[in-house]
């Protein structure tokens, strides 16, 4: 059980406080309700580029990192298709340093043309390092637009192409900040060995004078129900052929989301899973195979991916994969399989909850979903799932017309 308190400032900033009497550290986690899905199709990669710029100094503070490091702390951030999340970890006695820094950059940034120019280059190098200079690194740049025809999940957080990052201008940056970076669009989570009254006092002190702003209304184009099987093959200089099956699945708030999560575990989480034991271990058609979900807030994807063994054809593997998927529909999980999956989820959760930073991040994320207490309710949701539920969602999801297949052909 993870305990927390919650309060809201007059300007709309939601605050979660999690007390941990055992840690000498404090975590300040700030989640902004903006991600790559909020970008315009002509200016993609912007939420992420902007995350880089948030470290370039704010209205009263020329450099974000130095004062935090001086206080013994460090900071980082990540951007997903759904959110942008910033976190600071520092000795508890210096908590106010983090609040001073975070509140100032929520209030107003001080962008310089130099900072924009440099971060454009840094992000372009990140694009190359992660997507272009790795074998199979660019598959998501193809799989997303194959699976999504209208929803902004059709581009990756890094952006559709390098040119969008090169073209980013100062006016875009300022507009983006004004629209999304304000108290009414943020969730602040503080964790550490403090008293609630103290937290209220220091949060008031640093955040209450920031103008509320208007929470931007989010109207995203809904992805229409897929009705035909889609397939694309790209040719790359890689050592072996690879495949990525992407099935549409329900959004994060749908109860079926959790069932599909367990379904993906049953198919391909570990070396007991059905895809691994059948296709890799028994038939030896692949040298690796796995299944997982993208975990996105809007309708997401269930992915089955792997690499072919030498001299095996895509057709052979395709037939075998569909046969395994048929077993998900026709052969219910045994009690043993079901317990195994649930036990692994319990262990993983117990280890995740150990870290103060993890707890702070997850509390903020669940608050975004509607209620931070969701962090304590997940275990029961998984516990209640039964084999028949998994068969039912398998029947709806694991069908050809709900599938987009990307193949990487080695040349």
């Amino acid at each position, binding site marked *: 059980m993870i305990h927390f308190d919650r309060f809201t400032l007059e300007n709309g900033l939601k605050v979660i406080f999690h007390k941990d009497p*055992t*840690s000498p*550290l404090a975590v300040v986690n700030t989640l902004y309700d903006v991600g790559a899905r909020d970008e315009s199709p002509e200016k993609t990669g912007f939420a992420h580029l902007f995350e880089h710029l948030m470290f370039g100094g704010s*209205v*009263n*503070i020329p450099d974000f*990192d*130095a*004062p935090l*490091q*001086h206080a*013994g*702390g*460090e*900071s980082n951030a990540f951007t997903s298709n759904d959110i942008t999340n910033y976190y600071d970890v520092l*000795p508890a006695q*210096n908590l106010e*340093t983090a609040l*001073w820094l975070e509140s100032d950059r929520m209030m107003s940034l001080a962008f310089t043309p130099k900072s924009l*120019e*440099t971060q*454009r*280059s*840094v*992000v372009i*190098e*990140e694009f*190359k*390092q*992660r997507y*272009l*200079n*790795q*074998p199979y690194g660019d598959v998501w740049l193809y799989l997303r637009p194959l699976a999504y025809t209208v929803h902004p999940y059709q581009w990756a957080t890094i952006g559709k192409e390098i040119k969008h990052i090169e073209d980013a201008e100062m006016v875009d940056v300022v507009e983006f900040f004004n629209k999304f970076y304000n108290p009414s669009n943020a969730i602040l989570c503080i964790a550490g060995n403090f008293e609630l009254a103290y937290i209220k006092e220091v949060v008031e002190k640093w955040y209450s004078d920031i103008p509320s702003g208007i929470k931007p209304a989010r109207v995203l184009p809904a992805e229409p129900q897929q009705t035909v099987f889609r397939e694309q093959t790209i040719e790359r*200089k*890689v*050592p*072996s052929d690879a495949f990525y099956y992407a099935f549409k699945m329900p959004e994060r708030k749908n109860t079926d989301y959790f069932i599909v999560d367990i379904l993906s575990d049953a198919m391909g989480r*570990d*070396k*007991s899973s059905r895809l691994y*034991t059948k296709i890799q*271990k028994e038939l*030896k058609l692949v*040298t*690796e195979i796995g299944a997982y979900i993208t975990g996105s807030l809007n309708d997401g994807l269930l992915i089955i991916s792997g690499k072919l*063994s*030498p001299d095996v054809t895509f057709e052979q593997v395709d037939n075998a994969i569909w046969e395994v998927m048929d077993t998900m529909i026709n052969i219910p999980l045994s009690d043993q399989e079901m317990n*195994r999956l*649930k*036990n*692994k*989820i*319990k*262990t993983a959760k*117990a*280890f995740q*909850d*150990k870290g*103060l930073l993890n707890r702070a991040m997850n509390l903020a994320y669940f608050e975004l979903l509607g209620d931070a207490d969701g962090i304590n309710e997940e275990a029961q949701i998984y516990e209640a799932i039964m084999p028949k539920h998994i068969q039912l969602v398998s029947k709806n999801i694991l069908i050809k017309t709900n599938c987009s297949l990307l193949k990487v052909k080695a040349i």
Partner: protein
Amino acid sequence: MRKTPPAIHPLQKIDFISPKIYDITGDVKLFWMSEVADDTVHLEFHFDAGTIQGEPSLAGFVNALLLSGTDKKSSTQIQDDLNDLGAFVDIEIGQEVAIINLFCLRQYTEAAVDILADALVNLAFVSHEVDDMLREKKQAYLVSSEKVNMLGRRAFQAQMFSNSDRYGRIMKATDFDTVSIPELKRFHKDFYLHGLTKIVVTGNLNVSYIDRLIDVAGAWARTEHLSFEDTFINIPGEMHVEKADAVQTAIRMGIQLFNKTHEDFLDFQVLQTIFGDYFGSRLMSNIREDKGYTYGIGCGVSESHKSGFFIIATEVGKEVAKPTLDEIRFEMYRLRTDPVGEEELNLVKNYLLGQMLKSADGPDAMMSLFMGVEMHGKGYEYYNEAIESVTNVTAERLQELANKYLIWENFTIITAGEQ
């Protein structure tokens, strides 16, 4: 109010919790951190089965086969049994050590260890399991060979340990074709069944179970002396590994250095942090934040039991590989000629003390902190010395160290990419 930073309160001290230490044999010990408030258990079995042992590549293959089955159980049955308990097993290998990590909940620890012990002791090296491993590992090897980062890493290893066949060895694609089962069996017997060097336990277990663990694993204790080497020679100068069509070039450069047992170690930590080991470092400020040549650049000291080396690593746009090397050289030179300013030095001191506090947060972090000094025959008092040393180091001392160690001509410099 916003122009003035809040007051900074410096780190006073760190409250360390010591693990309990049990003798398995005279040299082999079990370390137990029982102060864990939740149900998680992390167990580590350390073996003298790193890549320096045996014939080249053999250690890696045996390591990958540890759960590949016995005469009675297939690899899949072993996996099923562990997964039924919700246990995660992570097996790793380095130059000097191989570690079996078990992560599970308290109530399943005993059963999970029994499964692991049976798999380890009765490992049968069934030929089709060996073939599966070789096929999968070879594919993974070929994929990793497409990464400039990995190509740089391999060349670096050979150049850095030029005088030691055991430490400088790197895997080749042909290694997968020449494995014999008797060789694997011999290695398993020598370095696992008689190779346990320590057990590390972090979890709120019963003390009676710790005794049982010692009984179970005691039979594997290492009896022979460890054969770690202490003197390595890196070949200075540039070496390029060509990789056609790479849009970025990986740079790795380094010199042989020392570990915690050396008198310069702690002060060098401060110097190398300023140079490249935090977000505000000279290398990051110049090469990322000013020039935008890279997504990241860093440096660090990698320690072994009897030695250590210093490494700088980055991946940069291929057209700026040469300018990046020029800037690294410039920053090295600057540390030798100009004393570090007071403001920067104070910032780094505070940063390092804060990081020390972070690395002692929670039983798992505390345990790895302890093991980090235990391997050099020291205890927590080392960290108290470190706090004092970091607090008192002067700019003059850092400049002296820069002139002693940061000598460009001594560095091995590897570039991997398209020239």
